[in-house]
């Protein structure tokens, strides 16, 4: 059941909320939690009973492993390790089978002319997210950060419907301690904040993401008929790729807001998963803002263990490790490039089935390696931090945006060959004006006139992305996410907010000649640092967003991240 469906918005969510409200008010809080577990199971079952069976089996498997880990005495390290490794392996095998088995068979058919049936495994909704969450859970139990738990809490943690299908990938300690009757009884504030987040998210998805999506197929799914087929020209390629970047951005951003909003309705604050990543000044910061909980998982459970292992091995062999600006090339290759590329390859494979996703992951691994290495070595070549920031922050923001956009070509393309063809179009190898226009006697001017609509969509959305406060910033005063600070001072992620504010400052400084624009940008900056009050104008704007979003439901497509 998609968040942008009539049945979710008008049936499932109101009924679930009404049941929860009644139970919290008139019965025990545990009954309300049980109700949420039951409705979450219904939410899953709606996508197919076969998928529910697999998900239920995986949750039960992890519950048994984790229970065994809890019961096993800490002194029996070997057994605990066997249980943990077995649990993780089991999760990886489950995910591999349901997500990649068909792909492996198809690859075998291609390479060795075998004749395997490639429709053997179904793809349970949200299994990628659930599997990573379960692995993190086992790791926390193994490291004794979770000393005990019960089946009800485990089911709630695993199934709570706002985050089941596309994240955020939450940790047990972030969710279960929030299960308290006190928080749940804040009905009115939770409803107000939840509805604001949900409205903004739904608007992003149904109006913005689905609106700009109409320009994506021009390059990615061009006509195949001989009479119309032609290589993708320069502007068409750029518009398609930018449109896809923005579609994915608002799709995922919208889903993340709706997840936060839906969770908040029930008094649960989920962690933030998306925080204006296209405003990042470098690719490291980008990954701290895009799919934040996945980055956190991969850093904690793939990247860091790899780096630690390689560091220890190198130290044992007497080889050099990283020493800031004096780091050696071999140390950078072994301790930056290798773990980063491996981690991002995992990220690529996790995101989708196909070689283009591996390339996408490796491309980002390459970006991150360059970024991390430059961070280490930069003081050697450019010691003055002030001049570096002045020049490289805006330049870095532009380079990061371009790098992300280019990688998106692989993320969306149907094959690596198709991606390369589109990249060729983006650098102009196929000319500026499509042959179709030339054949019809139309020149560049007519072509540009026809591009006004897509240019306008892309331009306006880019302005929204770069300049407007995001939903977390807007709702800052009401703590929209469990790890998003109420104020800019003393916040958990100072770097993120700092850079976000500094971008706005740069914009303000650069438009001193236009007082009204400067005032508008200053107001934007103020909203981003302080959030908004829930007053009359806010009520009107939020009402308009939800009404427009609901009116756009009939033409809305599925969430892109649901397929990962």
């Amino acid at each position, binding site marked *: 059941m998609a968040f942008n469906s009539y049945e979710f918005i008008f049936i499932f969510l109101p009924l679930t909320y009404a049941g929860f409200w009644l139970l919290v008010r008139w019965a025990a809080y545990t009954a309300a939690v049980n109700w949420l577990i039951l409705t979450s199971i219904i939410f899953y079952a709606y996508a197919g009973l076969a998928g529910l069976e697999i998900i239920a089996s995986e949750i039960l498997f992890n519950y048994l492993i984790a229970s065994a880990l809890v019961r096993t005495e800490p002194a029996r390290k070997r057994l605990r390790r066997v249980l943990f490794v077995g649990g993780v392996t089991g999760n990886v095998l489950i995910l591999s089978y349901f997500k990649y088995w068909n792909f492996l068979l198809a690859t075998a058919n291609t390479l060795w002319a075998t004749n395997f049936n490639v429709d053997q495994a179904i793809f349970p909704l949200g299994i990628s997210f659930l599997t990573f969450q379960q692995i993190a859970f086992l790791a926390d139990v193994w490291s004794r950060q979770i000393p005990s738990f019960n089946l009800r809490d485990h089911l709630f943690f695993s199934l709570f419907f706002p985050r089941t299908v596309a994240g955020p990938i939450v940790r047990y300690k972030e969710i279960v301690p929030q299960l308290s009757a006190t928080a749940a009884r804040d009905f009115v504030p939770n409803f107000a904040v939840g509805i604001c987040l949900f409205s903004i998210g739904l608007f992003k998805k149904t109006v913005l993401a689905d609106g700009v999506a109409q320009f994506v197929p021009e390059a990615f799914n061009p006509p195949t*008929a001989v009479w119309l087929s032609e290589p993708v020209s320069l502007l068409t390629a750029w518009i398609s790729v930018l449109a896809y970047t923005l579609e994915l951005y608002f799709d995922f951003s919208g889903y993340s807001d709706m997840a936060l909003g839906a969770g908040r309705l029930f008094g649960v604050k989920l962690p933030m998963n998306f925080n204006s990543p296209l405003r990042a000044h470098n690719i490291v910061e980008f990954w701290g803002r895009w799919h934040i909980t996945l980055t956190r998982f991969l850093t904690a459970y793939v990247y860091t263990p790899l780096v630690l292992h390689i560091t220890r091995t190198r130290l044992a062999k007497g080889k050099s490790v990283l020493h800031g600006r004096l780091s050696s090339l071999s140390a950078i290759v072994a301790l930056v490039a290798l773990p980063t590329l491996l981690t991002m390859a995992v990220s690529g494979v996790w995101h989708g089935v196909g070689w283009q996703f591996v390339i996408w992951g490796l491309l980002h691994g390459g970006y991150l390696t360059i970024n991390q290495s430059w961070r280490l070595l930069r003081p050697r070549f450019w010691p003055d931090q002030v001049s570096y920031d002045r020049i490289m922050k805006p330049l870095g923001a532009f380079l990061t945006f371009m790098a992300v956009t280019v990688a998106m070509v692989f993320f969306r393309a149907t094959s690596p060959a198709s991606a390369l063809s589109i990249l060729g179009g983006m650098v102009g190898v196929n000319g500026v004006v499509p042959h179709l226009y030339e054949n019809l006697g139309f020149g560049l001017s007519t072509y540009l006139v026809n591009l006004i609509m897509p240019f306008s969509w892309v331009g306006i959305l880019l302005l929204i992305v770069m300049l407007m406060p995001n939903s977390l910033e807007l709702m800052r005063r009401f703590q929209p996410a469990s790890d998003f600070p109420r104020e800019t001072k003393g916040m958990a992620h100072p770097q993120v907010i700092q850079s976000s504010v500094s971008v706005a400052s740069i914009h303000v400084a650069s438009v001193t000649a236009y007082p009204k624009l400067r005032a508008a940008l200053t107001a934007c900056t103020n909203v981003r640092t302080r959030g908004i009050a829930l007053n*009359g104008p*806010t*009520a009107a704007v939020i009402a308009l967003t939800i009404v427009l979003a609901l009116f756009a439901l009939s033409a809305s497509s599925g969430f892109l991240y649901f397929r990962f």
Partner: protein
Amino acid sequence: MDEYFRCFLTKWALAGVIFIALLVALNVMVDPYMVIGVPRVAGFNARKPSIETHTYLLKAYDVLRADPRTVLLGTSTVGLGIDANDAAWPSKDRPVYNLSIQGRGPYTAFRYLQHIASRTDLDLVVMGLDFNFFLDAPDPVELGPEFEQRLAVLPDGQVNTRQAWQRIRDVLQTTFSLDTVSESVVTLSANVRGESPNIVAGNWENSGYFRFIAQTGGRYVSLWDRRIIDLYRGKQVSPKAMESVKAIIHLCETRRIRLILFISPIHADELEVLDVVGSWKNFEDWKRGLVALASERPPAGSDVTVSLWDFSEYDAYSTESPSEDATMRWFRDSSHYSRELGRVIVQRILGGGDVHFGSLLSLETLDARLLDIQRQRDLYRKEKPHESQRVRDLYKSMYADVQ
């Protein structure tokens, strides 16, 4: 603290209701898809540009309101080329409604005919037959389940019990829809300007497609030739499409509705394409199949006649060359004839008009007719060798492997 949020939620709910009311009022009053049936007021909502994109939706409801005695079936060739308001239609057969659906084949035509025939007493059905819509086309899968549910009867003729529910869905989906808001704005703008595509008695008036062709100064015509090469190349006649024609004939015979079928005129360029891609025999066999269907004995008790006309020939109309400004009088592209030629067709099938244009087909006259067209073809190639060669060269340029 709760009061702060309560106050916000009250304002939010009030504003939401106001916005919903405003948008719904706009969509209902403009009624861009004609689902609700609001009266058409000149300068406000009379013009309906959505005829270009939502024909199947508009006509499902509009035809019931029109309560016609004659319906025209077919594709865009009929929608653009035959005028339901033509003076040639006899008064006893009026009102005439153009129920053609662009881009859809005989199955869709059959289903819409069933739809209107179940609600009104028709006297006459006229159907244009386009060969390219009989070539293994996946008609009507793309229209989705709403297409079937919207019509008054099921394919087997039983009453469609889901129609009322679909009507509610259509009203809700077009009323509470951002696309409809956008289309309402487009409709208002078109009515203020007084110029846009429009639907009048089902006719597709002032089509953007024809304006586009005119803008290209005739260059689009050669591109269209490339398209029809792809359309015909390697395709076979779909038995399902022929069954739909048979079903239309059967429906008319059992309901005692006169039926006139006509094979659409196509430009000589397109006839040449048929030969070049190796589909000439298919084309002739298709005509044989149609004649066989039209000549089947009607059910006992039915005195209805089925006429089948053939206008696909090399004649003064179809061999027309583009003028200096690259436009043609009788054709817009090789498949779409002009409203002017449509008038000649209407006159001819009703018993008047140019007696040298087209021919009534029957089992007795078919072979002679096919031979006659072949002779016309040979003559055409002698008189206009460059035209014929141009089509061959175009084909070779598209498919280099072709000898």
